[in-house]
């Protein structure tokens, strides 16, 4: 019999419960039937007489009296302290849920390795960024920035040469280099030293690029590439800067995504975007 498989602990326990219910029912009902049959009223009478009916002297049991008093005290506490302080609110539950989740999230991924971050970045990208940049990140044929090339060496070189705008700093970045060699050198230095990529196609240009960078770029982006408040974005965390300030240029407008991601998520997005080739 499939349904009576006593190896299954749930079935066995149910059966045991069933037996227990039957035994208890029989025993209790039997006890009371016996009591109805045999018991005689006894005890000290109060001595009243209401149309032939008297009353036993029964004091309030101590347990009941204690419970009654405790309940009154608890009721007062609950009305005036307990409930007002612990009243349910949907927003309160949301706050707690988010706080707990964030704490768990931060501790779980605090030391995530690079590949984990890239995978995490991709899943965030598919939800939050893909509607404009496309699932493949190539910008849907010019509707948004192509993130496969964005922030990489050729793009940096182009920006150094042609300038950039739209992140809301005091002035747009002017075209810096008339000769393409200077742009190439600066890009090599930026890629090798500041970019999360940490590698350049032209390692031999890095030392020359350092001089170009310090002469031309450092005024706005800082000697250490960390940017200058209100003047130029950090080159170390360019993805974070775009998320913070948004960007508006000839392609279109990207709104800032400030405070939408945790630090780990932002780092993951950066890792993903820099991993694109």
């Amino acid at each position, binding site marked *: 019999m499939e349904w009576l498989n006593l190896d299954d602990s749930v079935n066995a326990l149910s059966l045991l419960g069933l037996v227990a219910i039957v035994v208890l029912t029989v025993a209790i009902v039997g006890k009371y039937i016996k009591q109805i049959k045999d018991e005689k009223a006894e005890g000290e009478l109060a001595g009243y007489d209401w149309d032939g009916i008297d009353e036993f002297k029964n004091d309030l049991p101590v347990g009941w009296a204690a419970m009654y008093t405790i309940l009154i005290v608890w009721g007062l506490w609950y009305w005036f302290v307990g409930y007002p302080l612990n009243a349910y609110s*949907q*927003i309160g*539950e*949301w706050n707690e*849920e*988010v706080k707990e*989740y964030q704490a768990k999230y931060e501790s779980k991924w605090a030391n995530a390795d690079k590949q984990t971050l890239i995978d995490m970045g991709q899943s965030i990208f598919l*939800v*939050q960024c893909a*509607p*404009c940049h496309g*699932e493949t990140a190539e910008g*849907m044929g010019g*509707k948004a920035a192509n993130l496969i090339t964005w922030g990489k060496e050729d793009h940096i070189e182009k920006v150094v040469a042609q300038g950039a705008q739209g992140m809301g700093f005091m002035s747009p970045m002017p075209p810096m280099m008339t000769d393409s060699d200077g742009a190439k050198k600066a890009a090599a230095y930026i890629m090798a030293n500041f970019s999360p990529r940490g590698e350049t196609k032209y390692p031999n240009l890095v030392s020359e690029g350092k001089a170009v960078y310090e002469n031309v770029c450092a005024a706005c982006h800082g000697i250490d590439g960390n940017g200058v408040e209100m003047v130029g974005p950090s080159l170390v965390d360019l993805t974070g800067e775009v998320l913070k300030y948004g960007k508006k240029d000839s392609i*279109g*407008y*990207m*709104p800032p*995504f400030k405070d*939408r991601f945790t630090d780990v998520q932002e780092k993951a997005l950066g890792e993903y975007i820099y991993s694109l080739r």
Partner: protein
Amino acid sequence: MFSWLEKNPFFFTVAFLVPFSIAGLVEIVPEFAQASRPTEGLKPYSMLETAGRQVYIKDSCNACHSQLVRPFKSETDRYGMYSLSGEYAYDRPFLWGSKRTGPDLHRVGDYRTTDWHENHMWDPESVVPGSIMPAYKHMFSNSVDIDTAYAEAYTQKVVFGMPYDTPNGVALGSYEEAKALIYDEAKAIVADMKNQDVKDALARGEIKEIVALIAYLNSLSNERRVAQ
């Protein structure tokens, strides 16, 4: 008196409901009135946004899109901050919607832009592969109804006391002033658009529905809700 009530079920019901509603009136109504007040710094809809809201209603966007972010982490992660009842104080009628065939739009102005909406309304699948939303190309050829938009905004101001024409607030003014304002707003939106027909139409003095709708969708953001 009571024997008469007992023989008249209708009046009995009324006499029963009056005392028994008092608890409800005392506990529910003040809380509700408090929660429905406009949130601090909430702005009324400008002329172009009002026109866009009418387009939104006319084309039944609310049949597939809600405007209510619930306080669940899964929703606030995707759409942004949960909605407050006071944010709907100037929505007449409110457009909460009851079905999400498409995503919620109550915070859409925070993460979508004019050019994205332009691509999306013309051909949704060009930006969201697999989208089942129909294209709304007619919005690029139909013009907005400025008179009705003004009538609505004016009614909101005069009848419902919406705070138009306050210092640093949203201006409405006379019909002529409102008409000038709506063209200024439209110019700012169209400057970010790429469709040449819409640009040409504005140069001729016609504001296409898409422009108003984009203005409305962009206004569904914190910029409208938070005092600047």
